[in-house]
């Protein structure tokens, strides 16, 4: 496959050159934090670390971690490092897990973010001739504007559809001739289902590929989207605290996501000890915003579980790869002491040829965690005989048990009765009182 790069000199840079850039940017960033963010000055002083001690990127381990609670404690602008006149944009996290967090950007930061997203689009084969259909929500959420600016930065055309009104999305895919689709994977699947329900032959659409993120998703989900929409599906990763979508992205190899490490320096640490872990080992993903000015977070704990691979990729990029995140520790359920990620359930369902629509309900019954997975009945599974349906239920329950290592009850519900999401899908109802 022909490779497309947005900035080959950086994406395929030698390790020494990259390290030099990173070290230079880290020095500048730490100085900026120390001089302009009282929170960081206090932290470094408390640890007895002087900004001039930070010379190389390897010195990063001397620096403190930043947690989501630090952003909340300094809500809304307490960690902003630039004067008000330099702030060009404000976004906020969706706040699904508590009070929302506010993030600020300078004009330069917006450009850094757009560059990251443009590299992602180029890696998926997007060119200046393409129409990029953006179905992420536009607003405080970083999804919509992130890909919008990325498409424009690349020189492609952005179609700012935003999320919702799914039949209209399908109409626009047909009429405007969108080449690329950007949204959450669950919404992509829903758009695909809607095409099918409307009798639209997706093989006739010009749509070639899609870039999907803001949720952890499985390989099964990828196959499902690729089949429904007849496209190639790429993963994109980001979080508003660091920039938004475009922190890392998949290339044609789809063997991990290339981190834009000249802007966002990644580390994998042991979440308990805080020690850096070697290549290939799974741990908590931590980012330092060495390329940003307004909200230069140091060693931000993402709570995402991933691993890093520094080997050069077959696509030609040298940018370090992070393996597809297993899910955010926020989304992780601990059921009877076992860690369960919703994406694992999605994987099991798609492996059985079912659509990845499900709802996990967790309750505490007689002091014991009880997990029920609601699955939509499909015509393939349905029979006039109870026995046959029960066999199917047992098959799903068995597959869940062998993947999750804990038992789950399967409850079949009517087709389309589980809500479809236009943004981030709500997959878990946890009724346990802890």
């Amino acid at each position, binding site marked *: 496959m022909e490779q497309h790069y947005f900035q080959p000199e950086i994406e395929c840079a030698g390790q020494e050159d990259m390290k030099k850039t990173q070290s230079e940017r880290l020095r500048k960033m730490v100085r900026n934090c120390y001089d302009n963010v009282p929170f960081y000055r206090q932290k470094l002083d408390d640890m007895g670390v002087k900004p001039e001690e930070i010379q190389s990127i390897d010195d990063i381990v001397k620096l403190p971690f930043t947690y989501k609670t630090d952003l909340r404690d300094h809500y809304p602008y307490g960690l902003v490092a630039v004067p008000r006149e330099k702030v060009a944009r404000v976004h906020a996290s969706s706040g699904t897990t508590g009070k929302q967090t506010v993030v600020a950007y300078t004009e330069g930061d917006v450009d850094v973010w757009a560059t990251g997203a443009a590299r992602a689009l180029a890696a998926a084969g997007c060119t200046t001739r393409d129409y990029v259909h953006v179905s992420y929500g536009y607003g405080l959420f970083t999804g919509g504007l992130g890909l919008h600016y990325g498409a424009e930065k690349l020189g492609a055309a952005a179609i700012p559809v935003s999320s919702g009104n799914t039949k209209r999305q399908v109409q626009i895919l047909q009429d405007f001739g969108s080449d690329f689709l950007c949204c959450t994977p669950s919404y992509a699947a829903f758009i695909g289902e809607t095409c099918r329900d409307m009798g639209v032959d997706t093989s006739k659409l010009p749509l070639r590929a899609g870039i999907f993120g803001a949720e952890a998703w499985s390989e099964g989900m990828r196959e499902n989207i690729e089949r429904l929409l007849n496209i190639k599906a790429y993963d994109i990763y980001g979080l508003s605290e660091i920039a938004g979508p475009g922190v890392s992205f998949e290339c044609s190899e789809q063997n991990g996501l290339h981190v834009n490490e000249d802007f966002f320096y990644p580390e994998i640490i042991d979440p308990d000890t805080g020690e850096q872990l070697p290549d290939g080992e799974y741990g908590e993903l931590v980012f330092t915003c060495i390329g940003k000015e307004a909200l230069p977070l140091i060693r931000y704990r993402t709570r995402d579980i991933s691993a890093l691979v520094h080997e050069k990729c077959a696509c030609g990029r040298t940018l370090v790869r992070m393996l597809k995140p297993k899910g955010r520790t926020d989304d992780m359920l601990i059921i009877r002491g076992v860690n369960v990620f919703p994406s694992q359930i999605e994987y099991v369902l798609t492996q059985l040829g079912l659509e990845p629509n499900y709802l996990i309900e967790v309750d505490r019954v007689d002091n014991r965690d009880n997990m029920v997975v609601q699955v939509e009945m499909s015509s393939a599974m*349905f029979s*006039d*005989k*109870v026995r046959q349906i029960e066999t199917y239920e047992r098959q799903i329950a068995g597959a869940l048990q062998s993947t999750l290592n804990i038992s789950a009850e399967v409850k*079949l519900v009517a*087709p389309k009765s589980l809500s479809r999401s236009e943004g981030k899908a709500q997959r878990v109802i946890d009724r346990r009182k802890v």
Partner: protein
Amino acid sequence: MTIQQLSVFVENKHGGMAEITEILKNQDINIRALSIADTTDYGILRLIVDRPEAAVEALKDGGITVTLTDVIAVELPDRPGGLHEAVTALTKADISIEYMYAFLCQLRGRAYVVLRVGDNDRAAGVLQNSGFRQMVTSDLCET
């Protein structure tokens, strides 16, 4: 000789049944017989109607999961032991019954039992040879 039965998935939730009966009413479908197999979470509604294909189409359009199954409806004499004779004939021929339910057909003024068996052709032959008449699709329509 078989007739078509609709098997419909019904989730155990308030209004689940009304959703189905409303669709059938709107399509002017007449229900001749029904039976439900119920489990904790869902039921399978089995229906004999006058126009099975039209009913399936309408239900599918309404987003309901439904399949058509061929079943045997055997005409029975309305007296003690009537059903026993039919069941015995099948048992002797080593044919197992998955499920069954009975209904009266006003059009024909007779009692019928719907039988779901593994091998319809063989069961139909056995019943025929034992002197039992079986319902055909046209028996379900008024004309």
